[in-house]
């Protein structure tokens, strides 16, 4: 066990953790922040994406002990004062969520993308979320949500009635 101290969503935590505990399990099992999901445990799927000192990481590929003294942000910090963030609103509006299992990680990735590129092109959006698998939506509505929240969507994606 090693004692670590870190902030998660701006709140301070001090905990003893086993050296082999991943940040993902630490967040979910020790802090009860279950919004961050595990889809593979191997860095491939992005369901476990959180911000680590402001940058996205696969939390299944980070040891909790490495987070000592760091700032972690998770999906639980995205909505503020009981209100969805603009990004979450856009996901809801564009049906960018189906089963919802990829959604927390997807939102963390798009959140950081918008930090570094406030007006990403479609190619940049796709590049920004390529590490986040979504088996349900086919990604298109996620791309539309990100375009919308960055003020670039020309026309809402719609089902055509032939």
């Amino acid at each position, binding site marked *: 066990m090693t004692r670590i101290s870190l902030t998660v969503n701006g709140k301070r935590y001090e905990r003893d953790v086993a050296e082999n505990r991943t940040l993902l399990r630490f967040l*979910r099992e020790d802090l009860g*922040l*279950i*919004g*961050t*999901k*595990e*889809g*593979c*445990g*191997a860095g*491939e*799927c992005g*369901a476990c994406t959180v911000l680590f000192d402001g940058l996205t990481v696969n939390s299944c590929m980070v040891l909790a002990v490495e987070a000592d003294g760091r700032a972690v942000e*998770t*999906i*639980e910090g*995205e*909505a503020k004062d009981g209100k*969805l963030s603009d990004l*979450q609103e856009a*996901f*809801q*509006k564009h*049906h960018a*969520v*189906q*089963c*919802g*299992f*990829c*959604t*927390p990680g997807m*939102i963390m990735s798009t959140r950081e993308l918008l930090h570094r590129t406030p007006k990403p092109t479609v190619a940049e*959006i*796709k*590049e920004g*979320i*390529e*590490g*986040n*698998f*979504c*088996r*349900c*939506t*086919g*990604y*298109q*509505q*996620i*791309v539309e949500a990100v375009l919308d929240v960055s003020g670039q969507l020309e026309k809402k*994606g*719609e*089902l*055509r*009635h*032939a």
Partner: protein
Amino acid sequence: MLENQDPATLKYVGKGALRAEGVEKMTGQAVYASDMVMPGMLYAQVKKSPHARAKILGIDVSKAEALPGVRAVLVGSELDYRLGLYVVDKDILAKGEVRHYGEAVAAVAADTLEIAKAAVDLIEVKYEVLPPILNHMDALKKDAPLVHPDLGTYDFVKAAFTPVPGTNIANLTKLRKGDVEKGFAESEWIIEREYTNPSVQHVPMETHVAIVQWKTGDDVTIWTSAQSPFTVRSLFCYAFKLPLNKVRVVIPHVGGGFGGKAGIHIEPLVACLSRKAGGAPVKFQATREEEFSLLPCRSALTYRIKTGVRSDGKIVAQKMSMYWDAGAYADYAVNVTRASGYSGAGPYEIPNAWLDAYTIYTNKPYGTAYRGFGHVEFFWGLERHMELVAQAIGMDSLEFRRKNALRPGSVTLTGEVISENSGNVLKCINEAAASIGYGSLSADEKAREKETGRKIGKGIAALHKAPAMPPFTATAVIIRMNSDGTVLVNLALTEIGQGSVTAYSQIVAERLKFRLDQVKVTVEKDTDRDPYDWQTVASKGIILTGNACILACDDLLKGAYETAGQILRAQSCDLDHDDTRVFVRHHPEQGVTFASIAVGYAYPDGNAIGGPLIGVGRYVAQGLSNLDKETGQGYPALDWTYGAHGIVVEVDPATGEFRILKIASIFDVGKAINPDLVRGQCIGGMVQGLGTAVCEGYIYDQEGHLLNPSFTDNKIPTSKDIPDEIDCAVVETPQLDGPYGARGVGEHPMISVAPALGNAIQHAVGAELLHMPIRAEDVWRAMRNSGPIDNWITKTPSGSCRSDPAARRHDPDHAITP
């Protein structure tokens, strides 16, 4: 139950309501089974077979049992329960012999995951490795070893299935219509080909997970990521011989299912661990690797089609042989075989048809339901075949499809007559063609070809599917009114991402004339609380549960009118209502609020009438029948949803690499209850279909070890893999017995994406593709007319294992004319 309502007066149906449970999911607050922790909960791990086929000589669990923190260790010999949806062929833990790589042979429950894992590593299993039967075509041979020597003693559903004892055939479905030999005799051309595809994984982002507590007195509670609560309950009770009221199944949010969670899987094992551990709740969650081989996959298929065409391009005869690779257990695969059997000719009229569909046991992870239920697989062959036949007879393939498409008056393979209201496949085909500018390249496309040196091709593929379900499939909905006039809707069709909660909310709000925010459809399913539903499968939810919602609304209103009528001294026929009141139609000022009658109306003196308002809606599929076992004739289809995809692809003529520039997907959904949700299904399913089409598939070595059980070597589409342009459209030919005219579309978007792509690639560079997935290397090989690599069983890891044409020539049963 088409409600002949002027679309202009519809307030919610046909409109894009927001996802009802979206906020919960967006904030990370939605709780999935994988997130759940119960007081005193233990963690399970499973010991898995490293062999495809082996005799279990002995299992030594003594070291595992001695490990502190271990609460239960289980091996197969302790358990005498057998499972199976249709053929009861699977032990909870392997007994005597392991039948596939990754099969569970022992299991542990312990205080922590770490201890459970350590304990499993301490279990020693002695095997005698046996030669596995891996290729399902080999498994049909007369001298093939039997995967289930005791097949003849197993229970099975006799109305629908025909296992053949003494063989590896878990089921044989036959279909006979007209006289094929006569049809071939009339044919100008006869074209025969074989098409293949490997097993694939569903890849729900949440792997299978279950928590089970087997309490003293045999009260069992199961919290699971399953799709179908009542199926888990009934199969569980069947296996353990428990009354249904002893077992409660609870399903919270589910992180994707796609058919892989349709049946019962890990729940019984976890239950046995809980029982052995003295009744503590036990949790098991599959790792991603386990999801590939401990849990089931989608069956591989070899599809042979022989088609006779008259000189005018009309198909007159078609002989079809489907060989489905069930893997080690029959699970859903036998029903996939049945459902594919009766729709195996696609949305085309074939006057003389003959089809045999085999489900074949092999020593591989077993197949189960997967979005499309066989149709994704056989439409690969069928729609590639339509293309190749058209090419062979010198006809444009679109014209050929149009010529043979089902239209009102056409008779299906099983003898059903298509009507004006069955849906319009021709329109779907035409719309897909128009959307991609089928048949020629635009000026821009020509310029692009010139600039890049790559070739652009356009392809079309049509599709259809009916729900694969028993003819008597039923469901029920209960609506309860709260004392403030809001309503709570209970139904057991599970929300697995498809948006059912939202769609049913819209139907209920529409029918009740309530506001959407007055309606809550519960997300969590609970067999102790919710009324029966058969399964969350088959794209049957919108019709069956949708209709039951309407009936439940009517029932609720009937009760409300009864109470209100007494208070208002009016007959029901003179009453009307809005979202807050029931009132007299010709004296609207005379009314009572729903709130005042919701749980019984009290007069000022305290006298009361009525009582809580509850509406019950029950719906059972109408007019369907079992199919004749010899001829396959009968009525299997609740509805047919038709569709078509058109693809524009750009191919590098040297390397075979390709890029999808556009896809158009068109479905006749009858009525899009929520266009945004329908679009979500269309795009999501289409991209899942693309995964099947371009990169997914199980790869085995000669010993039957699965070589790619993870995302490292089983890729799925990412955001960078979707087509550059996506056009999604619906045709709305109302389904007379569908709610507001709607029919299901959950599975269909995945079907026929692969052949549309294959056809487009063929148009671009002439590559004749017979095997999917279509990897760049496959295109490259096809362009050079060299045999495809395939994913079945590899000699060197990438040799070929297609049914060997040379071997087949010596085997008259499986002869194929080259």
